[in-house]
Structure formats: C-alpha cells, structure tokens
C-alpha cells in the first residue's frame, strides 16, 4: 500500500499548501487553545513553584510555629533558654525549637555614625530549622553572639556595604554576617540577630519594645499532634502548623482550580473549534472525494489523505501553539509575578502538560477529520461529485430536535447534580453542562430555523434578510459554527466569572492594601504645616493629612491599644484565645461581618480626619472637634454608634474595657473599602481627652497623590532630620494572597483577546468557505460594498446568537462549578459586555474583510 500512502501524502500536503489562508486559519484554530493551555500551564506551574518558597518565607523549613497569646509580653523574653524550659513539659521529647521574637525600635549605628531606629527580630537564621526565611544575598548568617544580619535597605541606610563590617547597638559591637532580602524584595529595613548570648541580651534591653515570644518548631517523628496541641493550648500557647498557611495554600488552590477550569474549557474549545474547522475542510473536498472514487481510488486513499492533512496541520498547529504559549509564559510570568507581588523565580515550562495538550490536539484533529470524511464516504460518489452536501430530510431534523431535547434535559440534570454535589466531579459536570447546553441551543435554534426558512416576512433591511437567508441555506454549517463560537463565548464567560469570583473571594478574605495613589508615612517626629506643604509640592501630592497617632489607654503601667467594638471581638474567648482553629485569626476574620481584625482607633484633628475618611459637613466637623462624635474611616461593619474598647490581659483572663461610646459620623465621599494600615475609627484630641485615651506611637500621615507615589521620592522630600528614621509605605506589604485578585484584569484581558482571535479565525474560515457564493453574487451584480455588508451582517448575526447562548451557558456552568467550590459568585458584567462587543465587532470586520474583492463566475470551485 506504499503507493496509496504516497498519494495520500501528496494530496494531504497539497491541500494544505494550495489553500494557504484556510490552512493558516485551521492551524490557528488548533494553535490558539494549545498556546493558551501551554501559557496557563506554564504560568501556573511557575507560580506553583514559588508556593513552597513563599511558605518558607513564613515558616522556614519548620513544621510550624508556637506562639504565645497575642500582645502578651514576657519578662523572660530576652532569655530564650529559660522560656524553653517552661515550654518543655508540654512538648514531646526531641522537639526541635528555634526562638524568634520581634524587636521593636532598636537603634543601629553604622561605622560612619549614620543610624537608624528600626524593627527586626531576634532569631538565629543559621538554624537549619528555619532555612529559607530570607533570601541571603551576601555572606552567611551566623549563630554566634555578636553577629547580626541586615536587610539591604537597612545596610544602605546605616552605610554598610559588605559583610564583615560592624554596627553598634548601644555599647555593643555587632559584626554583619550576612545581607538578606525578604522573599518579595519589598526593601524593608530589618535586622535579625541570634538571641541568647550576653551581647544580644544587652542589645535587646535597649530596644523600645519586644514582641511576644514564639518558636519555630519541628516535631519528632510520630508525635501525637492533636494531644500536643491540646496540652499547649491549656498552657497558653497556640500551635500554627505550616500546612495551615491558609492564605498561601488557598491561593494555590484558587490558582489550581482556575487552571483546571481553564484547561477543561480549552479542551472543549479545541474539540469544537477543530471539529467545526474540519467540517469546513471536508466539505471543501467533497468534489475531490467523488472524483477520486470515479477514478477508482479506494476509499482508504481518500480517508487517509484527509487524515494526513489533519495530522499535518495538527502537528504544525500544536507545535506553533506550544512555541507561542512558551514565549507568552516567559514574557508574562515575570510581569504577572510583579503584579502579584511575588518572586516566582525561573519560568517552569510545564513541558509535560504542553506535550499532553499537543497530543490531545493532534488526536482531536485526527478524529475531527475522520468522522466527517467517513460520513462523506458513505455517500454515493455521484452525490459527492455534486459538491453540495445533501439537504437533511425532515425526519433527520426531527431526530436532531429529539437529540437536542435530550441534551437540554442532560444539561439541566447535570446542573442539578452539580448544585447538589461538590468536588472534582463538579468540574467535569460543569464542562458537560456547557458543552451540552451550547450544542442543544444551537440544534434547537437550527431546527426551529429550518422549519421557518421563509424569511420574507422578517421586518429586516434587505442585507440583513439576505444574511438570515444565507445562514438558513446551510443549516449544518451554521450549527457547527454557532456551536464552536458558543463554546468560545461560554469558555470565556466561565473564565471571566471564575477569575472574578476567586478574586472577589480573595478580596473578601484578606486585608486590602493601600489605595494605589496613597502612601503612608510613619514619621520620626511630627511634621509642621510648612513641612507638609513642602512634601505636597515636591511629590505632586494632592493632600497630606495632619498626622494621626494610635489610641491607647494606660493601665498598670502598660499601654492597651483601643479598638472599635465589632463582632470580631466575639471571636475571642474569655481566656483570650481565638475561638477557631489553633488560635488562627483568619477563620475569625472570615466569620465576622465587619472583617476588621485587631483594628485600631486613631487620634487626629479634623483636617487629618477629612484626608483619611472623607469630607464632613460643617455641623459634623463641629461635633467631631468638640469630641461629641467619632469618624469612621473604615465603614465596613460599623453602624451609627461605636464603642471604643481597650483589650487587656489580666492574670485570670482576658478583658475588654469600655472607654467610650460615641455616635459615628460616616463622612460623604467616604471610601467603600478598608485599609489595613489606617485606623478604623478616628477621634479628635478633645474626644480622646474626654474618654481618657492617650496618643501613642509615631505620628502617621496619609499622602494622597494623583498617580502612584514613589517611595524614594517621598523619603527624599521629608525633612532631612526625619529621613533616617521615618518609614514610607506605598503598598501594604507582601500580599501574596491577593495574587488572583491582582491578576484578574490581566486574565480578563487575555480572555477577551483570545476570544477575538478565535472569532476572527472562525469567521474567516466560514467566510472563505463561502468564497464561491460571494464571487457569484458579484457576478450577478452585487457591489463589493453590498457583499461586504452581507458577510459582516452574517458573521455578526452568528456571533450575536452564539455569544448570547454561550454567555448564558457559561454563566450556568460557572455557577455550577463555583457552587462546588464554595465560592461566592461575582459576574463581571463589564468584562462580559466587552467580550461580546469585541467578538461582534471582530466578526463583522473579519467577515467583511475576507470577502473576495473581485466578482467571478465559479470555475473549478
């Protein structure tokens, strides 16, 4: 059969090379989903690679962390050995511990006398238990007393250029053993020094404050964790396992399920696109198939030439898809990583997934070519020679309608099953729902349309009526196109909804960052009005608030922070422990309506209050200034009255002390969202005095600009004497958890673009299939402009039908899918509208553009 194979090769190859436009379009139809899949897989894999790293950023290589109660301080904080002794009875033998404590406000002096007062931690970074906490840029952390590790930003500030140099803290000298950066390169000023030794202990006593002691912990094998955890709880400690880095793993899950959804969608898209494309290809080869039969070519040759052609375009298409996907991933990953505020490291090509995708595409294409060519080969050669596919009998149409009805029923049943069920099955069912739904819709529409093929009564302009008639003239072709484009619309809808919902969930779940146009300045001293004016003019800021300070009350020689009473406080039990899982605040946060964990009350004058919270009326300002009312900065979860409470810990338990209850002003033009760094509620100096509240901490300023403020510019614009010890934050810090939220616009834009490309490919394919008809129309006197309008209206109509059906089914599928995921559903109406409009415009433009310019009577079809 060698001769037959050669023939098949020639015919298959020539089919590709002789109609280049169509080959290009079919290749595109194959390449696009492969490229998108490859890109998504590579980006997901790359982001995934960073997950363990990000986890290490919090937990090192430890099993988890032990913490004492929030805010509790210990007299023994500088003596880790003694603290560890107290812990021992609650722990199994052979437990490995590494001490860690926050050090607040330590003044570090460089060799040239430059100094900086910063926060850091006392922790031994040389301990293998916490390997990976920071990225070491230079040197190696040492466990020896008298050594210190600095972040690059801090080293810069105090004039340290390399390891081996010394800094002094109080009267002690510390050798810099390593320069490090946090995983997210946020240029924070921080230090770490190994605790326990005499030098370290002396240094810690000169700090303004110390946090509560905590330990990195690694359990001996076979430790009975539930028992251990219980023991620890009753001793006043909480254990947070690294697996409960809820934020991180949830991000991973969200990314995985989004990728899974996108993957399944792309698979369905590939199947339908390629099927539709090959329906066109096989139809164009009908006459050749008939001719080959007349010349005596066995059916095998005919079938195998189409298969060869399919394999050829499939291989080219999927290779191109992989190449494009990889390039896109390589270009996009760093950009996305930056947006996500994470260091994703080198791009993981996810080659296995790419190759699997390509293999699936090739297999699907082979199948897509085999099925219609088999069907065609079952017809008589004379029927094939007539080139026009047979018109289906009413009986077949009735069968089709029945099949469509069954599919609708299956889709509804699938939807029902999904709503009841949850889990992995959900994803599969979700895809079935929309695939079945789209198919059913298209079939119903087409059988309806064929039964009402008389278009004369339609009150439409001639061009549109002709377009409808042309669509109905080839119902099968119209159905395949509607199905394929409908699936494209459904996939893009699903992607949009899923990403928006996950983003929404993340926004709900986690603390919002500073607004893009704001910076927070924690100044070492109050700034005068003139200095604030200078700051405003040199940074181009529109507004710099008057400084506010955090509110506290003095009790037993301690300062207790003051918070607004919200339902979050209900989460704290009478022993001061958080009620949910292992003293973890996240579940409490989620359970609370207000979503304000450990919020603060701030003290500011009315100018500051207006900059932070929004404009007040004269009457409101007067009430605020006289101390009769408080202002809500963070409106979420707060009503018209607020109780200010101080959280304190007594030997017998945890207490909330009510300090004042004030009416709450919600200024006009207040923000909708909360910002972690800002106080939730503000009181004026007068209000504070009346309630016995004192200001504590450094004065903090909010700077509002028109664009994104630059940290360095603001620092430079501060008075010289305040520069060294002030901090400027332009974002809230390493908010890895918001990755999907931040990526959502990018995902949406990519989805719209992909949809446009696919629509362009399909419409061109469809229009090129009708080339002959358009040339004939030209020959009988239709102007080029009229033909273009006809083609545009036809493709526009197709797209509108497909998009409406596809979007609806996409919404149904997403609801099904997301119900299983236990995620709220956000429908990004704007993006959906953009998709539909963009698709319709693309279709109309492409439809018009591909119409042959010249009129010609048909010759050699």
């Amino acid at each position, binding site marked *: 059969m060698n*001769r037959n194979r050669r*023939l098949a090769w*020639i*015919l298959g190859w*020539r*089919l590709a090379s*002789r109609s280049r436009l169509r080959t290009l379009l079919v290749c595109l139809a194959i390449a696009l989903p492969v490229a998108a899949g490859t890109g998504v897989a590579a980006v997901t894999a790359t982001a995934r690679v960073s997950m363990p790293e990000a986890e290490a950023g919090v937990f090192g290589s430890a099993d988890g962390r032990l913490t004492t109660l929030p805010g509790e301080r210990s007299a023994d904080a500088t003596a880790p050995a003694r603290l560890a002794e107290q812990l021992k009875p609650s722990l199994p033998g052979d437990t490995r511990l590494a001490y860690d404590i926050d050090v607040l406000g330590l003044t570090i002096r460089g060799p040239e006398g430059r100094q900086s007062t910063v926060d850091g931690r006392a922790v031994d970074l040389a301990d293998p238990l916490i390997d990976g906490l920071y990225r070491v840029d230079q040197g190696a952390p040492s466990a020896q007393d008298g050594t210190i590790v600095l972040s690059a930003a801090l080293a810069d500030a105090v004039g340290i250029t390399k390891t081996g140099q010394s800094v002094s803290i109080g009267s002690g000298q510390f050798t810099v053993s390593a320069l490090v950066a946090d995983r997210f390169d946020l240029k924070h000023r921080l230090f770490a020094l190994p605790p326990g030794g005499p030098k370290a202990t002396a240094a810690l006593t000169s700090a303004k404050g110390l946090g509560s002691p905590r330990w990195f912990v690694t359990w001996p094998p076979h430790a009975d964790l539930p028992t251990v955890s219980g023991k620890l709880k009753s001793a006043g400690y909480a254990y947070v396992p690294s697996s409960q880095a809820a934020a991180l793993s949830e991000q991973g899950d969200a990314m995985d399920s989004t990728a899974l959804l996108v993957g399944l969608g792309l698979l369905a898209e590939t199947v339908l696109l390629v099927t539709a494309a090959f329906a066109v290809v096989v139809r164009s080869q009908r*006459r*050749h198939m008939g*001719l*080959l*039969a*007349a*010349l*005596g*070519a*066995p*059916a095998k*040759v005919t079938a195998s030439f189409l298969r060869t052609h399919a394999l050829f375009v499939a291989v080219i298409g999927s290779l191109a898809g992989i190449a494009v996907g990889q390039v896109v991933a390589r270009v996009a990953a760093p950009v996305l990583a930056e947006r996500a505020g994470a260091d994703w490291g080198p791009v993981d090509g996810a080659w296995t997934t790419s190759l699997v995708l390509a293999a699936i595409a090739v297999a699907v294409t082979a199948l897509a070519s085999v099925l219609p060519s088999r069907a065609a080969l079952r017809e*008589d*050669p*004379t029927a094939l*020679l007539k*080139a026009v596919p047979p018109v289906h009998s009413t009986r077949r149409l009735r069968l089709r309608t029945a099949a469509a009805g069954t599919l609708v029923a299956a889709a509804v049943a699938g939807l029902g099953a999904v709503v009841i069920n949850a889990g992995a099955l959900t994803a599969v069912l979700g895809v079935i729902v929309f695939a079945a739904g789209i198919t059913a819709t298209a079939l119903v529409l087409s059988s309806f349309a064929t039964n009402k093929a008389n278009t004369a009564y339609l009150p439409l302009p001639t061009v549109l009526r002709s377009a409808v008639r042309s669509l109905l003239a080839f119902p099968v072709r119209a159905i395949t196109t509607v199905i394929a484009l409908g699936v494209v619309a459904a996939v893009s809808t699903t992607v949009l909804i899923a990403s928006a919902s996950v983003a929404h969930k993340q926004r709900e779940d986690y603390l919002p960052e500073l607004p893009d146009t704001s910076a927070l300045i924690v100044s070492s001293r109050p700034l005068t009005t003139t200095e604030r004016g200078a700051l405003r003019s040199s940074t181009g800021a529109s507004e710099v608030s008057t400084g506010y300070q955090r509110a506290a009350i003095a009790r037993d020689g301690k300062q207790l922070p003051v918070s607004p009473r919200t339902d979050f406080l209900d989460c704290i039990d009478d022993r001061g422990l958080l009620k949910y899982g292992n003293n973890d605040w996240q579940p409490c946060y989620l359970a609370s309506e207000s979503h304000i964990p450990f919020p603060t009350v701030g003290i500011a004058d009315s100018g500051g209050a207006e900059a932070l919270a929004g404009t007040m009326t004269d009457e409101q300002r007067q009430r605020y200034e006289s101390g009769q009312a408080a202002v809500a900065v963070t409106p979420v979860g707060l009503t018209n009255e607020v109780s200010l409470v101080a959280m304190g810990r007594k030997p017998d338990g945890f207490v909330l002390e009510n300090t004042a209850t004030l009416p709450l002003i919600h200024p006009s033009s207040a923000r909708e969202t909360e910002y972690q760094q800002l106080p939730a509620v503000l009181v004026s100096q007068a209000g504070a005095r009346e309630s016995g509240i004192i200001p504590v901490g450094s004065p903090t300023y909010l700077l509002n600009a028109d664009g994104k403020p630059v940290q360095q510019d603001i620092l430079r614009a501060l008075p010289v004497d305040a520069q060294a010890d002030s901090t400027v934050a332009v974002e809230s810090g390493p908010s890895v958890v918001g990755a999907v939220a931040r990526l959502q616009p990018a995902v949406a834009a990519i989805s719209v673009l992909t949809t446009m490309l696919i629509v362009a490919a399909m419409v061109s394919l469809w229009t090129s299939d009708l080339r002959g008809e358009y040339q004939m129309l030209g020959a009988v006197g239709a102007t080029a402009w009229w033909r273009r309008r006809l083609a545009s209206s036809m493709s526009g109509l197709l797209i509108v039908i497909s998009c409406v059906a596809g979007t609806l089914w996409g919404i149904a599928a997403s609801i099904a899918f997301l119900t299983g995921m236990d995620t709220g559903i956000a429908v990004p109406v704007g993006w959906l509208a953009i998709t539909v409009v963009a698709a319709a415009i693309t279709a109309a433009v492409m439809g018009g553009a591909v119409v042959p310019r010249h009129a010609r009577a048909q*010759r*050699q*079809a």
Partner: protein
Amino acid sequence: MRTAVSTTPGAGGPDEPVLRLEGVHKVYGTGETRHVALDGVTVDFHAARLTALVGHSGSGKSTLLNISGGLEQATSGTITLAGHVLTKMGPAELTRTRASLVSYVFQEYNLIRTMTVLENVCLPLELSGMARAEARRRAATALERTGVPRHTRKFPDQLSGGEQQRVAIARAIADQRPLVLADEPTGALDSANGERVIELLREVTAGGVACVIATHNPEVTAAADHIVRIQDGRVVEGGA
C-alpha cells in the same frame, strides 16, 4: 492487497460487448418524491465504437453512465462489464473494477485542483498499479497527444476550460482502460475546442476502447459510430 481484475473482454469472443445492461431500473426517492430515472434499459456497448447517448434533459443519460461505471447502484437489472457482473459487487469491489476498467470524463471539474496537470494524468495509472516512472512517461505521451504538453507543471485553475477538458481526456487515454464514459465533455466548450475533444475521443476509440458519450451536441452525434436515444428512462433507439 489489490486483486487484479481481468481487462480482457468477456469470455464470449471479440463480438461480445464491453458493457451490457439488461433490464436496468433506477428509482430515486420514495413515496411522493419517487422518480423512475431508468425504466428497464437494455443496451450493449462495443469495443472500438463511439456511442452517442442522446435524449432530452432529465431523460436519464447521466444516470445511465453513472450506473454503468459503478458510481451508483442500479435498483434492479444486470450490468456486465468485461465479463464482471457489477450488480453483484459491493462498493470496494466496484472501485477496484473502475480502477482497471473505466475512465470518466465529466462536463466540468474533472481535475483534482491540488494536483498538477501531470499528477492528475498519472493518478489513474498509479491507482491501477503502474510504477511511477512508467506512469510519468505514459502521462507525458498522453498529454502530448492531446496537445497540452507545455502545461504539465501547472495547476488546473491556471488552465482554460478547453485545456482542462483535454487534460481529462489525456487522463482517460493514458491508462487505456477498455471503457470510457464521457458526460457532456463538450458542454462547457466553444465549438473549436469541442471539435478538438471529439477528435481526441475518436482517436481513443480507434485504439479499441468502448467510448460512450452522453451529449446534446449534434457534432458529437454526427461523429458517433452508433446512437442510443433515451426518453423518460427508456431506450427508444439503438438498444439491444
């Protein structure tokens, strides 16, 4: 594996027809759409004879040709082609039989437009099992005979209608299959080109081939050795 089909005429000697149709019926559709295209056709076609098949439009000429070459199945009756009974064959066997015994020339769209002129002519030769070099040699000779040797590397849509038709005839000549069925081969051509085609088909017939031409063209009828006239699916002149 291809089983060779004997190309020698049937067992009954040189006078035996290459193609014999006996009581052939062809019915299209059922119920309301039922149409009898051939109604008991009995006719013989002999070697070295050019037969013109004439009749009004819709009388059943194309149907007869298609059934004779096994492109369509007859509803009833017997068709014997060079000793083989087509009406007993399945589609695959019919295809094999065509590959060794039948050449077609249609009114239009005769050529595979993704193949060059030379490849188009080589195609049936290779399908009937000839080596490539030999096939090319024979194809070149046939193209020379039909007067299109300059165009061997062109694709069909780069040729005029008349040239395309001559290539189709070159393809029929090259393989020397004993039966040539031509359905209005001059229908799309001007009279000069039409005459050229008739001349070529006469040459082919002279080589010992049975040639059947369905036509409305009086010049073809004039050049024919024998005329078969059909009317409403029945042979009214020249039947057996």
